[in-house]
């Protein structure tokens, strides 16, 4: 066996080819094209295979990172896929949308020298390689335990729970309110960052393992949690973040003011950019302002650009505090999204037909650190900036979806509308009910939701195994 470990540290992180900005700003195809085989192998060979893999400790789903990287280095891709899938049912998704720079890659020992291993890109490489082979391998399944689990919501937390539990021999049914599985992966994250075909592929993989999928079914309305408890031994609630936040400033209900969820759902789930072939209309605006600085704000701004708009992000802090992934910020900058930092919207101005035509903003400066540890933006008196717009997208966050809380007696709901759970197990205040993902934490990342799903699955499995 060849030793994948080179004598001298290679700090040259291999770049992943991308569509050039001037091309991709006009299409919805994926921006990053993925490593070719040779590059992936080269990148994998840079990994020094630490005895104490700090990267694994930082991964919410504890993927054996050195293990799968070693396989790539040895060109044993099949082996790599099986190591990866052992802990992660959704590698093609995680490889694309996880904030690796904040998790595994941040903990890489090479990070201090600026040459951390591109773990996310390698993960993506393996997942895509497997998909390119045509047939997804189905792992050996254990005998059925006869126990039944209902999973509420079809997003990343739920998909993880379903994958883990079916692999433990339990029967799993996922109930999804929309007409397609995937939750935020389908309605929220745009095609250019996460092709929908990949989500569909991962969902089909779960289906091939025997997970039952029910769409167009709103738990809390079509049936309640209590109804489901009569038929199922355990329930996992991963109903996600609903109820978008608005700033409650004048003019917010003018036509042309969207929540990020509305804007993205029209485009992604409903394929509005193919209107009128698809029947859900979208507007092709000329000037769009997106409020917020997270990944969702970047997604909205880059979508607006692709629909032909001059696209501007208005964020109340500075570039340093942007919560979005660095890669997405850079992508947005390259594509031509304009950033207005230290700028806070205070009022929307409408035209005579009730359409937003301008947005008035207060300019800010950074003061002392606040509770979040970031320097707090404070208004500069008299400094007002006005932008002419024909659309505004509000991407400042969401509250957890209220439907389950409102229809499930005895379920403890926190101050922010979140379902309260035991942190270690995801167990809620109701017997046989677990919860995880955005409905517990408020809007967060895909990988955190998956981590919560994994934890809950462990606890659910333990409970089900204790039953006669």
């Amino acid at each position: 066996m060849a030793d994948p470990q080179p004598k001298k540290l290679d700090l040259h992180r291999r770049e992943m080819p991308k569509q050039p900005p001037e091309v991709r700003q006009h299409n919805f195809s994926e921006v990053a094209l993925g490593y070719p085989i040779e590059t992936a192998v080269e990148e994998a060979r840079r990994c020094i295979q630490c005895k104490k893999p700090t990267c694994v400790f930082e991964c919410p789903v504890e993927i054996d990172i050195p293990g799968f990287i070693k396989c790539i280095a040895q060109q044993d891709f099949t082996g790599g896929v099986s190591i990866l899938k052992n802990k992660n049912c959704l590698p093609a998704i995680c490889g694309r949308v996880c904030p690796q720079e904040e998790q595994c890659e941040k903990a890489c020992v090479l990070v201090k020298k600026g040459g951390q291993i591109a773990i996310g890109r390698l993960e993506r490489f393996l997942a895509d390689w497997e998909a390119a082979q045509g047939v997804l391998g189905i792992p050996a399944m254990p005998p059925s335990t006869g126990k039944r689990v209902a999973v509420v919501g079809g997003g990343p937390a739920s998909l993880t729970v379903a994958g883990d539990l079916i692999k433990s021999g339990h029967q799993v049914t996922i109930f999804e309110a929309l007409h397609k599985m995937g939750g935020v992966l389908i309605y929220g994250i745009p095609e250019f960052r996460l092709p929908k075909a990949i989500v569909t592929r991962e969902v089909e993989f779960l289906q091939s393992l025997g997970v039952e999928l029910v769409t167009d079914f709103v738990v809390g309305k079509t049936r309640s949690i209590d109804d489901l408890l009569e038929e199922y031994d355990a329930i996992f609630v991963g109903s996600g973040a609903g109820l978008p936040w608005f700033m409650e400033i004048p003019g917010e209900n003018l036509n042309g003011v969207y929540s990020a969820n509305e804007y993205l759902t029209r485009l992604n789930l409903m394929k509005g950019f193919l209107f009128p072939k698809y029947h859900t209309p979208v507007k092709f605006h000329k000037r769009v302002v997106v409020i917020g600085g997270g990944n969702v704000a970047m997604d909205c701004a880059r979508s607006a650009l692709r629909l032909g708009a001059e696209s501007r992000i208005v964020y109340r802090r500075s570039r340093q505090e942007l919560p979005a992934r660095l890669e997405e910020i850079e992508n947005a900058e390259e594509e031509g999204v304009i950033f207005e930092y230290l700028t806070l919207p205070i009022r929307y101005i409408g035209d005579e037909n009730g359409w937003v035509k301008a947005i008035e903003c207060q300019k800010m400066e950074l003061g002392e650190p606040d509770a979040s540890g970031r320097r707090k933006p404070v208004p500069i008196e008299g400094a007002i900036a006005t932008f002419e717009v024909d659309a505004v997208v509000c991407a400042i966050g969401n509250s957890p979806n209220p439907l389950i809380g409102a229809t499930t007696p005895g379920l403890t709901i926190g101050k922010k509308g979140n379902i309260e759970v035991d942190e270690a197990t995801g167990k809620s205040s109701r017997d046989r009910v677990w919860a995880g993902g955005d409905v517990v934490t408020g809007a967060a990342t895909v990988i955190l939701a998956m981590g919560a799903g994994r934890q809950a699955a462990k606890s659910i499995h333990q409970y089900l195994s204790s039953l006669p």
Partner: protein
Amino acid sequence: MFRILSSRMIVPNIHLLTIEAPAVARQANPGQFVIIRAEEEGERVPLSISDWDRQMGTITLLVMNIGSTTGRLAALRERATIPTVVGPLGNATEIENYGTVLCLAGCYGIGSMFPIARALKEKGNRVITILEARSAYLLYWEERLKAVSDKVVHITRDGTRGFRGHVGRLPEIIKGFDEPIDRIYANGCTFMMMRSSQASRPLGIKTMVSLNPIMIDGTGMCGVCRVRVGGATRFACVHGPDFDGHEVDWEELLQRRKTYLPEEVVPLQTSGCDQHAHIVKETVDG
């Protein structure tokens, strides 16, 4: 997939659809709605549930053909299937014994008022129903509403039946009744519900309306259905669809409903009648 069991036009432009949707039928209550898609490329649109049969697992919808999706639905025939019927969504109408209740129903709202009137009657209310239409030939379900009402009154724009005019005549009509009205429900187009609320405001009678703004998911996620009620922004899908009509910002609601008006014309132009005719032919032949 959800099967259409029957579909027919009961008055010009208003279609009665019975759809097999057992999960919805099992839970449906007065005032709730479903979101449907007429085909895979289709839009998600909210429609009030006008009746249900829990044993048969069916729901009844009244669909007014006004745009792309409603047009496609209207073109569907018996045995055709549609990809999405999800619900029941929204909160059920609050039904108590209020005394004498006036049910004001117009247009497609005549259908959705029926289960509300029935539930009010079952709760022991005295129910007076006012049916509003442009002309007598546009009235439907009169017998059904008579069966659950103590009195049925008509208003037609052209005076071909009952009072001539519109719901703005509410105060004088009420004056003619022997008894005071304790509560009003209004179901119809946004404009009609606005007029009903304006007419009842000086009378000081609480007036509940069932709002129908633009929606996508119907579960609170997208926020497009927001309406200002009593100065606060509410989402019609999870906080409603019923609200106090005297508190609703009608101007804003009417304006928000117009958002996609220009786009709604496009699919009508591009889809064409021939395609609808084809759907009809296929479902009839098949």
